[in-house]
């Protein structure tokens, strides 16, 4: 069973991510990960190892949640990681899922995070419509 088949139609979620990418020009790619670490939708191209991408996104989300527990916080709201060639951004979705995005080094990261937070409700709705969280 492919990842896409596992997700079901995924149409609403794919559309929501496509809208987000169209809105946020500095976003290179974006994805939605379920609370249990399944890649529900992703904008990355053919040839990218989806399972590897999902595992790394889940590792980043878990690392952030560990930091939250250690600091005595309930949950993480967002994460920004600055890499050599760009930025990795994570926004927590209702139910524990994660909206993730990668940007180039010179991206307006604050603006991308703002767009991600604004898109969160629509993505949560699309995720629920697909029967996943």
């Amino acid at each position, binding site marked *: 069973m492919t990842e896409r088949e596992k997700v079901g139609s995924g149409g609403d979620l794919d559309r929501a991510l496509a809208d987000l990418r169209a809105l946020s020009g500095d976003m*290179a*790619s*974006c*994805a939605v990960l379920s609370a249990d670490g399944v890649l529900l939708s*992703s*904008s*990355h*191209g053919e040839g*990218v*190892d989806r399972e*590897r*991408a999902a595992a*790394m*996104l889940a*590792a*980043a989300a878990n*690392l*952030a949640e560990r*930091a*939250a527990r250690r*600091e005595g*916080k*309930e*949950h*993480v*709201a*967002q*994460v*920004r*990681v*600055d*890499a*050599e*060639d*760009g*930025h*990795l951004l994570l926004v*927590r979705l209702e139910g524990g899922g994660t909206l*993730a*995005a*990668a*940007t180039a080094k010179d991206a307006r990261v604050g603006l991308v995070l703002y767009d991600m937070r604004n898109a969160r409700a629509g993505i949560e709705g699309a995720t629920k419509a697909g029967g996943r969280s």
Partner: protein
Amino acid sequence: MKKLLGRLVILGAVVGGAVAVGGYLRGGAAATDVAHVTFDDGSSISFASNTPEGEEFADIARKLVEMGV
């Protein structure tokens, strides 16, 4: 005796200063904040590149930026 104590104090200050400057230079070059985590209550924490968490975040981010999420 007083003279010897004075010299010891000066020597201690010089050695201490050298150690402090060395530590500052080593630390200053390595420690940049790479990961910024904001919690649901609005508070946040940053991880420097020379911490285990910072290294792990940076490693994951480097790979994901390279391949796309």
